[in-house]
Structures are given as structure tokens and as C-alpha cells.
């Protein structure tokens, strides 16, 4: 990649990231020298086939894992050097997560799932407000078992954004959904990015989704293969697969 020019409005700045997993006696390199900035307010899509290293990258950027070498700078601090406690605080205060399989707490209602996060966040929005943002005002008192997959994922998005995170990380958010429901979920993500200005990273292997991004990063074999900027973002409603 070219010379190291830090974008003036970078929220996260990753340099020389590599990650090697040790399984038994085998060393599996998952990332090999990745440099990447997440720019404030942008919607970035990390595109790649399974095993390309995109999830590993997201896990490191999200503070779930540490790189084998390299650094991730956030607000002047290096995530790679943080201990578990500091990483927990980083996730708690600054990162919102949306998972492929929603990961809602079955024993809590939609609102309560959101409140789970707002209770421990420094400056959250109200749970009702977050649920209204994803269009679920009508179903706030339902338990996960009473919601459809798309609805569950929108609760998960509400839960992720309710704390007003600096960064929203979405790992295959539509992976378990059909195309129509997936579009609704992407809509919710695009809307929060637009309205709240949250820096948003979406991981997917679905190339169609790349069209809704400001920037697309193609990952393969643990390296960044290509970075391209979309001149115009498509609305999720215009996408289908």
C-alpha cells in the first residue's frame, strides 16, 4: 500500500496488523500487514469470502481480540496494548456490535435488551427512542421468541446504537436473513449512520451490499486487496440479492 497518510478525521487507525492463530502445532495466519483508517461518520463495507480475515480484522478493531503485531490507535491509545479490563471499557463506552445471529438475551424483552446496554453506558439515548429509530415502537414489550428474525436483528441494532457509540460494528448482519428482511435491517443501519453520524463498519461476503457504502475494502488472504470509494451510495431499498 502507498505511504502512510493518516486521514485527518480517522476514528480508528490500524497499522501493520497481523494475526496468527495457533491451533495445535499448526500456525494459521489470518491477517498479514493490514493498514486501515475508519473515518468519522463513514459507512465502510469490508468485503471478502469466508476465511479472508475480515472477521479477524473486525474483532481486533472492536476490541475483542489483540493483533499478533501492529497497532490500533483509538483516541490516542493503542488497543493492542490494552489489558482485558481496558478493552472491556472500550467496548462498553465506544463500540456497538451487531451479530449475525442477533445474540439477544432470551429472558429479556426488546426494550429490556436495549436497556441492558443503556444501563451501563455513560450517555445513552432512551431505549424507546432507539427502538423507534429501527421501526420497532410497536413491539417493545415482546420477548425474542415472539419476534421474527428481522425484528430480532433490528432489536440488536437498537441495542448497539442506544449507547450512541463512536463506532458500530456489524458482522454479517443479514447473514441469517432472507433478502427482503435483510434490506429492512440494512435500512436501519444506513439510517442510524446517517442520522447519528456513527462510524459504521459492515462485514459481509455479499458484494451487493457494498453499493450502500461510502467506501469498500476488499479483503483476501489476510490482506487488503482493494479499496474503492463509491461516488454515490445506493439506498438499501435499491439493493437485492
Amino acid at each position, binding site marked *: 500500500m502507498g505511504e502512510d497518510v493518516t486521514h485527518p478525521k480517522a476514528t480508528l487507525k490500524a497499522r501493520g496488523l497481523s494475526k496468527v492463530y495457533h491451533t495445535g502445532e499448526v500456525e494459521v495466519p489470518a491477517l498479514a500487514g493490514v493498514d486501515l483508517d475508519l473515518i468519522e461518520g463513514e459507512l465502510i463495507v469490508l468485503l471478502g469470502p469466508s476465511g479472508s480475515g475480515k472477521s479477524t480484522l473486525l474483532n481486533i478493531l472492536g476490541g475483542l481480540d489483540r493483533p499478533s503485531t501492529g497497532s490500533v490507535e483509538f483516541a490516542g491509545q493503542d488497543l493492542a496494548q490494552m489489558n482485558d479490563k481496558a478493552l*472491556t471499557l472500550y467496548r462498553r*463506552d465506544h463500540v456497538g*456490535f451487531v451479530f449475525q*445471529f442477533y*445474540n439477544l438475551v432470551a429472558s429479556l424483552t426488546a426494550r429490556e435488551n436495549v436497556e441492558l446496554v443503556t444501563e*451501563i453506558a455513560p450517555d445513552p439515548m432512551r431505549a424507546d427512542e432507539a427502538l423507534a429509530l429501527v421501526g420497532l415502537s410497536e413491539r417493545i414489550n415482546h420477548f425474542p421468541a415472539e419476534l421474527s428474525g428481522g425484528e430480532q436483528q433490528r432489536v440488536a441494532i437498537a441495542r448497539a446504537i442506544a449507547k450512541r457509540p463512536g463506532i458500530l460494528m456489524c458482522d454479517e448482519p443479514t447473514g441469517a436473513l432472507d433478502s427482503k428482511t435483510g434490506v429492512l435491517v440494512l435500512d436501519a443501519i444506513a439510517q442510524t449512520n446517517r442520522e447519528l453520524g456513527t462510524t459504521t463498519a459492515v462485514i459481509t461476503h455479499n458484494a451487493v451490499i457494498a453499493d450502500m457504502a461510502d467506501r469498500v475494502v476488499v479483503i483476501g488472504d489476510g490482506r487488503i486487496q482493494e479499496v474503492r470509494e463509491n461516488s454515490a451510495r445506493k439506498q438499501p431499498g435499491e439493493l437485492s440479492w
Partner: protein
Amino acid sequence: MVMRALHPLDKKVVRDLGSMWAQALAIALVIAAGIAMFVMSEGMLESLNETRAAYYERYGFTDVFAPMKRAPNALEKRLQQVPGVRFIETRIKERVTLDMPGMNEPAQGQILSYPVGDEPRLNRLHLASGRWLAPGQSDEVLVSETFIEAHGLGVGPGATITVIMNGRKRDLKIAGVVLSAEYIYAIQPGALMPDNKRYGIFWMSRTALEAAFNMKGAFNNAVFSLDPGANEDAVKAAVDLILEPYGGTGSYGRDIQISDWYVSGEIDQLRNMAQFVPPIFLAIAAFLLNVVITRWIDTEREEIGLLKAFGYSTWAVGVHYIKLVMIITLVGVVLGFMGGMWFGRGLAGIYQEFFRFPFLHFHISPGVFTTAGGIGVLVALLSTVNAVRRAALLPPSEAMSPPPPTTYGRSYFEGWVRRLSQPSRMIVRHLVRWPMRSLMTMLGNAAAVAVLIGSMFFMDAMEELIDISFNRAERQDATLTFHEAMEPRALENIKSMPGVLQAEPFRAVSAKLTFRGAERRESLTGIVQGAHLSRILDQDLKPVDVPRTGLVLSQKLSEMLGAGVGDVVIAQVTEGRRPTLELPVVQVSETMMGSPAFMDFDYLGRVMREEGRLSGAYVLMDANREAKFFHDVKNTPAIAGIAVKTTMLQSFRDTMAENVMVMTTFNIAFAAVIAVGVVYNAARISLSERARELASLRVLGFTLGEVSFILLGELAILIVVALPFGCLFGYGLAWLWTISLDTDLYRIPLEVSRQTYGMSVSVVVVAAIASGLATFRQIGKLDMVQALKTRE
């Protein structure tokens, strides 16, 4: 190598066990505890029963015992002719006092005549060391093994002991050390526990005893064996009729022979234990197996679907899980067998201290193992069959798809729940979602507390028993007993002995009490008005004066006779002028030991027409002049025996401490196994079920502590709720013990101290905390990345 030879499914069994080894071990240990208890008690029961039967058989233990004042030898023939009598032995049996070196207070003993150069037909002794009595040696004595052992190595065959017989000091040479079927359990009359140092049994040649006790040509004790099928009551009645003119105090059978009574009592107690304790452990093991296997199978849905999709039959899948259950069970059973044999040998060692058999092999018959193993396997199968069946019948298509998310609902107390934080709501909803599971975990914890209270309360009960018996009722320092009732001036002599501060006389006459067909041999004890030392307690344990006329029955005697206040009891006195008295019951008193009957001292004297005569005296003494007092007691021929409170209490406490320590250690270990088994399993299963949920929360920024709170908080609630129930059940268990140990010899007061509650609760809480910490470490290892990738 072994693994390679296994069928793939069996490899899976081995690997699954490897991954859940801690849980499997916890369950196996609970099974082992139940099996061990069963094997130990059943084995001990069997060993004790068989040993006793063999001992009695081999050494000719008698069926009927008849004491009397003095009968001529010629009477033996008449007694032999009583229909039903097979063999008879006559003998001389007397009380003696001993002056043992290094002991201030005199030791007590029984001395019996024993044939020289010939074996008796009944009650033959077992020679443990030394030799039998030699002809013509009138100063030789055989001594009970327990007494010899208690006095250490200095005393043994060849040594000399000083015995005060009929007031005369004699130095006797120990010829041999023996054991007797008649004294398997040797306890001094009136004592709480055997004190082998202060009570011994001795045998001498008949001629020597005849000379010492002026019994030439006479005997004062006869023992009988009966023909098979003989009517024991008829024999006793006929014997009593013949012996009445000779001061017979009434014959009795094995049922109230002290030694056999104690052995039987112990056997009954073991039987209770075998029926009572193992089911508790097996029920808990069943519960654990059920929960663990059911939940674990739930996590195996996909594997089951896969196996069935590959073409494995329902049966093969079922057998696969049954194998897993059986391996855990068999490990438990085998550990239980080993533990049972080990505890059993330990118990046999304790038994040998109190019950003296020439041989006591702790032996467990194959039947006990088969039964124990069979019950263990059956319980395991029954508790898991449903889960295994459901798993095996799961259609592959359904099994391969993830189970629907758990349906939670609002609980009835939702209004209250809404005031809680989200993690607390998760706890409450989870508890309410699986009420049965929560209830069972709670009950398991409660059972652990209860088992502890049920064993530790014995110490409290014993202290209470001592307080009631010795601080409230019998407050004398020593009780002196004469060979026979003495003239009133004997009391003045006792009062003038050195160190005696106070003395109260008592009179005791043996009698047969009957009321509406119920019959009981008991002595009538006359105590004085305004007694300060030996007092009667009313039912509220308040001391009261003995009524001037009429009879006071102890609660136990009142129950046995079925007679209460206002009833008239017939008392046939078997000594002195042998009057038959009609005595109205005027009071029922509370006693923890024995089943005594009391009367006013003067009133008893009047009806016996022996006013003022006393059988002995209760004495309060000056501790500083004890040595001089004991010296005089040893040298007073009229005094047959002395019971000293401090030594009696000391030996009682020592014995209890030792036994209760052993039992309590066992029980603490067992209760900890239960507590750990329940708590650890509950925690681990919850963790594996909710790993994904908890890991997700970690991803969302919850700290390790906050996440642990959700899991461990639930268990903490179940433990906290269980504690009061455990205390309640423990009290109930203690109550059951007092009922099952309520005998005519003693009763155990239902007393559970705060310390016992506190200690029991602490043990369980500590076990729970240890389990919690082990789980906490596992929570720390949760894989957050994995949680994002896997579906429910």
C-alpha cells in the same frame, strides 16, 4: 491404543466424559456417598449380627438369668427340672471395689465364679492371653480384656491387683485375660458410657468366692439355656416361683440383659441408618443425573440429528447415552464399594472399643454389593431414561435445526421485577422459567445443610442431656451404694467421712411393676423431702419435691406401663418382706436416662417396714479432701460401690467427642459432596447453556464481574433461599433421630444450638463459594469471538 480399537460412538463417550469430567465426578461422588453408607451400614449390620450369633453359639451364651440372695447348691437339681430348661449353671456373682495404682478413686467391678480345670456348659470365656485358673490357687483371677487394656501394659498376666472383696483387701494374681459373651458391652450400673478404666469384670474359682463372700454350699446367681421351642415366660415364672424363698429378684431374658440390650440397640440403629441415609444421597444423585443428562443432551441435538441422518438407529443413539450414564454410575458404585469397605473397617475398629468380641471381621456379603450396585444402576437409569428416550426419538430433520429460542414470559410478580436492573431481571426470569429445576437445586442445597445439622446436633443434645441430668437433677458429686440396706446411723457415718459436705440418703428396692397387663422390672427409689442433691424434675424440667405418698413415674416408665397420674400401679417388691403394693401414680417426672420410679424415702421405709434404712447416699464433697475421702471409701467394707460424677462425665465427654468427631467428619465430607455436587453442576450446566448469551454480554462491554453476577447470582439466590429450609429440615432430621434413638436406657433431648446451625450453614456456603469460584474461572475463559459466530 485402546481408543483406536473403539467404535467411533464409544470414542465419543470417552471424549464426552473427558470434557465433562468434573461434573461427572461430582455426580459419581454423590452416588458413591449413598452406596458407601449403604454398604457400610448393611455390612456392619450383617457382620455384627453374624458375629454375635456365632459368638453366642460357640460360647454358650445363656437365655435366662436369675439373680437371688442366696440359695443352697441342692436347689440346682430342682431348677434343672423346670420344663424347657436345657442346661443350668449356678454361680456366685458379687460387686467388688479395686484399688488401682495411680487412681485416687476406687474402680468398680463384678466378680463371678468360674469352674477350675473344667469348662462350664454356659457362658464360656474366651482366653485372650495368659492361662486359665489353676487348681488349688485361690488367689488367681481372670480379668476382662477391656480393663487390662485401659490400664496399660503394666497390668497383665502375672501381675497383681488389689481387690476389696466383702470389705477385705486381697492381692490377686492375674492368670489370664478373657472375653465374655455376657459382657460384650460392659457398663457400670448407672453410668452413661462404658469406662473401662473404672469398671472391670473378674472371674475367680468358686471355692475362693465361697470363702470370700460366706457363700459355702450356696449360690446367688443362676443362668439357663432353653430347649429349642421352649416357652421362655413359662420357664421364668417357674424359676421365680422356686427362687422366691431364696431372695430371687426375678429372672429375666436376653431382652433386658444389659450387654445384649446394647448390642441389639446398636444393630437397630445401624438398620435405621441403612434405611434412612442412603436414599437421601441416591435421590440427590438421581436428581443430578437427571438434570445434567437432560441439559447435556439438549446441547447435543445436532450431533443426534447427524447420527440419525447417517443411519444410526434410535436404539443405537439411546444406548450411546445410556453408556455415558452407566460409566458415571459405575464409577460412583465402585468408589462407593471402596468407601463403604473403608468406612466399615473404621467403624468396626470403633465398635471393637465398646463391643468386645473375640473376633469381629468386617465382612460384606456379595448380596450387599449386588443390592447396592443394583439400586445405584436402577436409580441412574430411572432418572435419565426419559431424557435419553426423547433424544433417541428425535427425528433427524428436527434435530439438525436449532431449537427455537427459549420462550420466556412475564412472571406473576412482573411489577416487582420491573424495578430491578436488567441483569437481575434475567436472574428472576430464569429462575421462574424453570421452577422445577430451581426448586430441585434449592432442595439439594437444603439437604446438604440438613445432613450437617442432623449429625452435628448430637453434641448439643449431649450437652443438654448432661445439663438436665447432672446440673438440674443429679447434683451430687458421688453416689455411694451399700451391699445391702443399712441402719439409719450409716448416714451419720457417711456424713462424718473426710471431705463430705452434705449427704442425702436413698433407698432402692427392686420390684415388678404391673399396670393392666403391662409389666416392667424397675427399682423403686426412695428420696427425701426437700432434697438438694438428687432431685425430681417435672415435665417442664423444674425441680419438685417428691410427694409424701404414692408413686412418681418417669415419663418413659409411664409410657411403657401406659399408666398416668391417677392410675394405680401394682408393685411386687422382690426383696425384704416382699410386699405387694398398690401405688397410685401422683406425678410423672422427666428423666433423660433410664426409666426410674420414685417414692418418698420415709413412705417407702414404712411400706417395707424398714423405716430409716438406706441403700446408699448422695454426697457433696470438698474437692480438696477427695483423696482422703476415696481412701476411706476403699476401706469401708459396707460400701459396695461409688460413682463419681466428674470421672463419669469426663469419660462420657471423651467418648462422645471421639465418636461424634468421626461421624461429623464423615457427614461434613458427605454434605460438602452434596453441596458441591449440586452447586457446581448447576453452575456448570447453566454456564454451558448460556455460554453464548454471557459471551455476547461480554462483547457488549459487560465486565467479568457483571456477567458472573448473572450466573452466580442465580445460584446465590437458590442457596440463600435454601438455608432456612435446610435449617428447618435439619431440625426435622434431628427430631427423627431423637425419636429413633428414644430407648428405655436414655433419651436424646431435641436441642440444636445456634453454633450448629451456623456451622452447618457455613460449610454449605463455603462449598458453594468454592464451586462458584471454579465456575467463575470458566466464565473468564468464555470465547467471545465464538459467540459471534455460532447460532443458538
